[in-house]
């Protein structure tokens, strides 16, 4: 309450501030009113056909409703959807279990899950064994594809980035030089270019006759590209750990790798947490680029749905699709950074 009062008092502290505050209030009020009208009051929520939206100058939520299945799964066969749902429930369940406050063996459990879960999800989604019908990756799409790429990339870049960061900091000049070259090269190239290489050149790099799935190539490109960014962030974290920590670990009789694994890396990862979250948010936003490589992720399905002749009835459909995509990305990315900021504050309090 007191905060609110001092906030309002600050808004009117000088004549100039009064003028600015008034102008902003007016501008915000008008825009919020228009947004409410566009997105809620005048919006079309249901209807028999796309024609229900024709001529209405407001959001066409009917478009999202009609395409919701595609937005979630792309063209994944409807009769096999239970497999996607099962993976989703398993993934969410694991996330919930790991965010509960328990400690014993949690690290091991997390590591085991990081290896077991992708295998499980890969088998479930693609099929081909245990009597599951094969669903080629070209039929994966929508939110499913976005989540697969984002989750895979974040999960692989953490260990890869850590390895590259340690190599970059290595006392062995050859190792450090290779790591530095890798980081500079990957950070100097645009992701679109790396993706092009994965799509066009990669098949020429493998022995003749070896055919690697386009999605797998994309996943490799994402992992290699982002590992360099992650490595730089983690390197910053390692540098933030005082030298004395390593020396203390040595004095306690730990070996080099024990000191690294038990003393330096945990503190480095904690120090690098804001950067790690930033890279993760960037990865989630980057997944949209697969559209250029001809895959239809969450944004791709929405965007390509706009050229459906049945839905060419005015700009409001396009605006609705972009608005919806923007809100979803904002909620996920902003939510992630807020959540991590809260965790950080909690950790900080614990240390004091």
């Amino acid at each position, binding site marked *: 309450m007191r905060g609110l009062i001092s906030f309002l008092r600050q808004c009117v502290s000088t004549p100039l501030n009064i003028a600015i505050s008034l102008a902003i209030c007016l501008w915000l009020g008008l825009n919020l009113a228009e947004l409410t009208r566009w997105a809620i009051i005048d919006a079309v929520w249901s209807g028999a056909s796309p024609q229900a939206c024709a001529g209405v100058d407001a959001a066409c939520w009917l478009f999202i409703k009609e395409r919701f299945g595609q937005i979630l799964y792309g063209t994944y066969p409807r009769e096999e959807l239970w497999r996607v749902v099962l993976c989703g429930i398993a993934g969410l369940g694991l996330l919930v279990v790991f965010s509960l406050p328990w400690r014993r063996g949690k690290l091991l459990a997390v590591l085991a899950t990081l290896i077991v879960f992708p295998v499980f999800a890969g088998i479930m989604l693609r099929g081909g064994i245990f009597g599951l019908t094969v669903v080629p990756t070209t039929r994966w799409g929508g939110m499913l594809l976005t989540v697969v790429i984002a989750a895979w990339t974040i999960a692989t870049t953490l260990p890869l980035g850590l390895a590259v960061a340690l190599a970059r900091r290595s006392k*062995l000049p*050859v190792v450090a030089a290779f790591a530095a070259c890798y980081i500079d090269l990957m950070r100097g190239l645009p992701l679109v270019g790396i993706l092009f290489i994965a799509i066009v050149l990669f098949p020429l790099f493998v022995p003749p006759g070896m055919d690697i799935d386009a999605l797998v190539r994309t996943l490799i490109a994402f992992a290699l590209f982002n590992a360099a960014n992650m490595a730089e962030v983690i390197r910053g974290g390692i540098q933030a750990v005082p030298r004395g920590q390593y020396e203390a670990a040595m004095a306690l009789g730990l070996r080099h790798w024990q000191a690294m694994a038990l003393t330096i890396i945990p503190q480095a990862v904690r120090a690098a947490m804001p950067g790690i979250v930033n890279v993760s948010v960037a990865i989630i936003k980057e997944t949209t680029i697969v559209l250029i490589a001809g895959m239809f992720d969450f944004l791709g399905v929405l965007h390509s749905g706009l050229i459906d002749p049945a839905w060419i009835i005015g700009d409001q459909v396009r605006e609705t699709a972009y608005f919806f*995509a*923007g809100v979803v990305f904002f909620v996920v990315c*902003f939510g992630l950074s807020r959540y991590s900021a809260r965790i950080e504050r909690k950790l900080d309090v614990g240390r004091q």
Partner: protein
Amino acid sequence: MKPPPPPSLLTRMRLTEPHSFLVQVGLIAAVAIFVAFIVANLSANLERLNIAVGFGFLQRTAGFDIAQSLIPYPPSATYLRAFLAAFANTVLLAVVSISAATVLGLFIALARMSTNPLLSLVALGYIEAVRNIPLLLQLFFWYFSVLGPLPLPRQSFDLFGLVFLNKRGLSLPAPVAGPGFSVFLFVAAAALLAAWFLFRRARLNRIRSGRSSIALLATAIACIAVPLLHVLLGSPVSWEIPELRGLNLAGGVVVIPEFVAMAIGMTVYGSAFIAELIRGGVMTVGKGQTEAGMALGLSRARIYSKIIIPQVFRAIVPPLTGQYITLLKNSSLAAAIGYPDLMLIVAGTTLNQTGQPVEVMAIAMASYLLLNVLISLGGNVVNKRMQLVER
């Protein structure tokens, strides 16, 4: 006492210890085997698929058109010329959006640090909204939702009858060289040189005597202002203003809508990140600095220009360079909305037509690396000049 001899190369490379030797030589061998494996596969595949090798295609006629080119691009242009045109387009887009994003980012940062909490909140909302929505989606929005529904040339939006915006793009007044232009250029260059000397002289004078010499500064400014006014008033350069002829606008420079959408999208996206960098830089300058300046009796303007801003600059130049590189790399998303940049023309059209992916991708990637190196070199030079000179 003699200094110890410098360590030999073997010691410095840590090849004398058995463990380090094994690890490092093993790593080199592994990388060499990996590269050899890829090269062997590549040559086998190229032969098997009958793909031509070499850069000879650069001299062949490209046969496709480029919607916007800064260099002459006739129908008979070669692939090399197409590459140069695309390279120039990428550089143009990067330069325009990096400069605009920096200026806009500065204003957003000022709004964020305003004493008016409401204004600060609005700036925060802008920053968070822009940073948490994918750039590709923002580009789609600017290109398809904002520029797409623009009117035809007949109903263009115009600004003072000089600048026109419509479906076909942005029409700007174009400078046309009149008679005596080369003489003018010569004189203007001489005037600029004179202005530089006068500024230097004025600065040296001030350092020596502690007083600024108004006369010198005024002459210097006049040396710049007179040629500038001359150009703006239309001589010997005249301005060709776009005008409606029939169904279309004629004259002036037309900027294609793809460029406009890319430039706006990248400017907005970059400005949010740059605003946060600038704010972070200002935060690093302690309050004591301002107080010390006040204790010395300096005016507010002096405190900012001589104490705060130089320190902010020093703190933000390295991250700002990184942000510029990111923006340059982001310009490759132009392929998604069809702006003819390096990615679209080289990695797209040229690759499809020549069918030589290795050479074409090598050219495209080397170009991006080159531009990145240029930006970081520039950043390093500025950074060096900004560094504290310590005793």
